[in-house]
């Protein structure tokens, strides 16, 4: 019974944890601009993250090594270093975006100036990383993140023509007002948001810290197979809201407040309050995950002690990196950078760096000496993973040119 509760909590956490600042912005922006014509990318993205997150969890459970440890081991010191710097930088942008998201959500609920809130949020995030019981916080924020389900309620309240909505989703095309390049660029942003690398850094490191073994493989599967698809459904609800409410009015999503607007207009005051809580929780949870991921990436590359299980004394450099990253992200946020722009760049650059993270996972998941004879990838899984590897490489190659051609999607 207790075990069942644990699994249920894990699934719920995965749902709330799937959506972060990147997903909120990307889904609302594409829904407002492309209607449901890019919804298929969310599906493609979620299958990708399911396949690779499951592998990273399985590797962590069977050989006790987290993702970035493997990245260096298989790619070597030099390439691993380049990879570490790139991943750290992208993760830093994501962290900035998440902290800004928390601050924006609080500011929308209280009208306290966003710049006053950023330092407070940074301190809270750091305190949790420093000494709070992490699993508890993760679950609290994961569960509160479920408030975002109000986006689904909003869609239902708007009462769209369901057949039309379904057929718009299943028959995608490039809208007449757009060219193929911006369409591809927004698709890549959505894909990057769904497969953000910190998700596997965090997932696999957490599995190692929780001491997962072979018997936790079932829970691993259930979490990703149920949690992530439901999280993706949430993303689609956000997109549908923007499509139904914002697109007909020619509204371009450039502010987080616009993401919440369809819910307010369809569900009302209570709905607005719930959605702001949901945004707060989802971004705060993601801020925790990205803060820790900054430490994971660096510490695992250099082989330093890392983790939140022991006291900070037992992982001093790890905690120092986490602290400095949070401080730097807060300062970057305070320079007045546009948080939505930072979010967009963080997800697009994530997309460009995806093969760096996911390729080593795929190789190790096929290594008999690590996985034992019974737990390497099966043929079917390898076939899907290979298709995704090709997609990841194509996306990575196309991203930077597309960014230049479309001038960042404008």
């Amino acid at each position: 019974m207790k075990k069942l509760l644990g699994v249920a909590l894990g699934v719920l956490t995965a749902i709330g944890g799937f959506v972060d600042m990147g997903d909120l912005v990307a889904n609302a922006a594409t829904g407002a601009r492309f209607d449901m014509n890019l919804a298929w990318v969310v599906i493609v993205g979620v299958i990708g993250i399911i396949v690779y997150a499951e592998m990273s969890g399985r590797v962590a459970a069977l050989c006790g090594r987290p993702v970035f440890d493997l990245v260096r081991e298989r790619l070597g010191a030099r390439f691993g270093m380049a990879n570490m710097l790139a991943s750290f930088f992208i993760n830093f942008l994501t962290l900035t975006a998440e902290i800004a998201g928390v601050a924006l959500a609080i500011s929308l609920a209280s009208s306290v100036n966003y710049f006053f809130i950023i330092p407070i949020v940074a301190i809270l995030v750091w305190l949790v990383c420093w000494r709070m019981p992490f699993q508890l916080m993760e679950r609290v924020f994961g569960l509160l993140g479920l408030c975002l389900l109000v986006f689904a309620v909003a869609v239902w309240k708007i009462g769209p023509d369901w057949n039309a909505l379904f057929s718009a989703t299943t028959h995608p095309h490039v809208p007449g007002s757009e060219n193929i390049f911006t369409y591809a660029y927004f698709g890549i942003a959505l894909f990057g948001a769904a497969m953000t690398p910190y998700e596997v850094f965090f997932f696999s490191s957490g599995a190692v810290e929780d001491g997962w073994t072979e018997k936790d493989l079932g829970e691993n599967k259930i979490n990703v197979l149920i949690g992530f698809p439901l999280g993706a459904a949430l993303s689609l609800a956000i997109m549908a809201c923007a499509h139904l409410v914002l697109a007909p009015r020619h509204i371009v999503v450039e502010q987080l407040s616009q993401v919440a607007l369809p819910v307010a207009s369809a569900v009302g005051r209570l709905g607005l309050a719930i959605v702001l809580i949901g945004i707060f929780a989802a971004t705060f949870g993601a801020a925790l995950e990205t803060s820790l991921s900054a430490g994971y990436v660096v510490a695992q590359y250099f082989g330093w002690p890392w983790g939140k299980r022991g006291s900070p004394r037992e992982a001093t450099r790890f905690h120092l990196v986490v602290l400095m990253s949070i401080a730097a992200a807060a300062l970057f946020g305070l320079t007045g950078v546009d948080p939505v722009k930072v979010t967009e760049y963080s997800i697009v650059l994530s997309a460009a760096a995806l093969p760096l993270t996911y390729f080593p996972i795929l190789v190790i998941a096929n290594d008999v000496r690590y996985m034992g004879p019974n737990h390497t990838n099966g043929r079917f899984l390898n076939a899907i993973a290979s298709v995704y590897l090709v997609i990841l490489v194509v996306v990575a190659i196309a991203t930077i040119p597309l960014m230049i051609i479309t001038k960042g999607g404008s």
Partner: protein
Amino acid sequence: MRLSDLLHYTVRDSDGIELGRVSDVRIVQDGRILRGVQAAFRVDALVVGRGGVAERLGYMRARVNGPWLVRVLLTRFEQRAHVIEVDQIDHWDDDAAVITLRAGRR
């Protein structure tokens, strides 16, 4: 000498024809016993030439077999790699970072 130095060495056969760079080192534990605990790590062969990637990822050792796509892409390159056993080496030139093999060996 460090392994990272050795990985910069070039290997030539006795006629001076270049076979490639050292890309890995094969180690066999069958030698003398160290401090009574375990067998020494004797370098048994040098892996020379391209194929460093497939080697490093484990595709050449039959430990990693899948996925098919990656295996095929990587093992294509590996065909150019040579395995040179240490007793085929005639001469080490540390200043020029060149290893020359005995006559009749390639």
